[in-house]
């Protein structure tokens, strides 16, 4: 118990407190100037926008994947099921490296996509691709246990009462799954906002265009502009706390719903 507290204080609490203490050294005006420069604003916009799109893609495809994995039998199912966790196990640098080479003009996918005008590598689209990869497991893994525990009797009842499959899905299944999907979405979103390693490989990292907020922190640090780095970090940190609170609420809602 005491050990736990000491360890936590040294590793987490103290450094985080130091960060905020450093912030107090800045006046509001200075902070605003650093945290809300045009370049920083562009970086937040890209980070949030791309994370949102990626989380949305994951919510859609994650639901589909979870559904298929729980409900159907097909060859290779167990392999795919195990592979869903790959984005968690694969170091982000490796993920970024291989994705950028896949979508580059001479890559396996870029070869077909680039002539169609879809530039996956070194663009904003690349940011979305990397973040989709990183967040892929969240919705699937949140949804799977819910689907497994789902009572097929309810669906059968709906079918017996004459509801079509599509209507059953919309009125019976979808509302039950919604809290879990939202939780997965929020988790993927939160993860995407902080992501750094995979994105810098595939995004072009051009200021104002394909530069994400965590990268801007690193750039400020390389300029020895500590105050600038801290200001942006605090904005990200504040957002992380908000998201953490939202996720907790969603999870409570989801578990209350299932009961």
């Amino acid at each position, binding site marked *: *118990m005491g050990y*736990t507290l000491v*360890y*936590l204080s040294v*590793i*987490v*609490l103290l*450094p*985080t407190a130091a*960060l905020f203490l450093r912030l107090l050294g800045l006046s509001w005006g200075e902070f605003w100037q650093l945290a809300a420069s045009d370049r920083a604003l562009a970086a937040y916009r890209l980070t949030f926008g791309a994370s949102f799109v990626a989380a949305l893609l994951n919510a859609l*495809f994650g639901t*589909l*994947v979870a*559904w*298929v994995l729980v409900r*159907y*039998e097909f060859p290779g199912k167990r392999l795919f099921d*195990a*592979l869903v*966790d*790959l984005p968690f*196990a*694969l*170091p*982000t*640098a*490796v993920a970024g*490296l*291989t994705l950028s*080479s*896949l979508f580059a003009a001479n890559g*396996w996918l870029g070869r077909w996509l680039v002539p169609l005008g879809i530039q996956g590598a070194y663009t904003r689209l690349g940011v979305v691709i990397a973040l989709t*990869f990183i967040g*892929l*497991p*969240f919705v699937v*893994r949140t949804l*799977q*246990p819910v689907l497994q525990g789902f009572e*097929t009797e309810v*669906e*059968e009842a709906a*079918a017996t009462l004459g509801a079509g*499959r599509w209507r059953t899905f919309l009125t019976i299944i979808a509302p039950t799954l919604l809290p879990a999907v939202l939780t*997965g979405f929020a*988790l993927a979103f939160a993860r995407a*906002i902080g*992501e*750094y*390693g995979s994105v810098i*490989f595939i995004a072009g990292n051009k200021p104002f265009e394909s530069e994400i907020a*965590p990268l801007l*922190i*690193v750039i400020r*640090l390389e300029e020895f502009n*500590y105050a600038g780095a801290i200001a942006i*970090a605090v904005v*990200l940190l504040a957002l*992380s706390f908000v*998201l953490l609170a939202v996720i907790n609420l969603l999870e409570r809602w989801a578990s209350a719903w299932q009961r």
Partner: protein
Amino acid sequence: MSGAAKSRLLAQRTRGHGPEEGGLARRFLIGAAVLFLTVFLVLPLVNVFWQALAKGGRAYLAALAEPDTIAAAKLTLLVAAIAVPLNTVFGVAAAWAIAKFQFRGKAFLITLIDLPFAISPVVAGLIYLVLFGMQGYLGPWLDAHGIRIVFNVSGIVLATVFVTFPFVARELIPVMQATGTDQEQAALTLGASGWRTFWQVTLPSVKWGLLYGVILCNARAMGEFGAVSVLSGHIAGETDTLPLRVDKLYHEFNATSAFAVASLLAVIALLTLFVKTYLEWQQQRAFARAEQAGSAPADNELPTRDDWL
């Protein structure tokens, strides 16, 4: 009966009753899901090995034998060898405290444990820089005493410890809560000492969860990039871990070497997935056995999503 035949039979049985999608819709859904997973998971994974071996096996081995790469591999192993045991001990202690005792501020403690999952790795690196860097609070003092943390191996270890410490604790808390305190109280009543109870009762009851957490912790410790990158200083052969080495080679436009190093990390990731799947399978079997014996623990949660995040 073989597993495949059994599952096919099961599928036929479930297909027989209940409202299910028609064959066409089912095939379409499966096709779409498989396509998505292939594009986002299978292709990237295969591509790593393909590109690594693109210039032949000899070039691959030569890339791995570079002194800087070997140094990076050693550093990665060293960092994991320090961070993982530290976090295992912490994880067990924290989960023990949270699951078995009631105290004020428990919710706050859990939030603190979750924190590294929520904050950006770059920010994690930054907070240590602020504390220990030369412009930071403790930096000048540490420097005066000849201790270097930032741009040094100890900084890398610290950053890794930070990003990986929730894994074991997160994994153990639900398992420990599910097992309850009855058995331990029985052991204590029978005269076992606190330590003995811990080693012989508590620890065996959570061994799968513990192993699971350690595996995940290790995977992340070896693969961490953002936090380590901020604190490393990028000195080739000294403070480059394997993921940082991948980055450096990539920026030197040395694709084959970058992919060769990446393939090492991909192998570690695959091993992690393999062990994880095996452990899940073990747990499911143990669960099924307990259920057959009629004494299924009420909600002995199988690992779901909290494990990673």
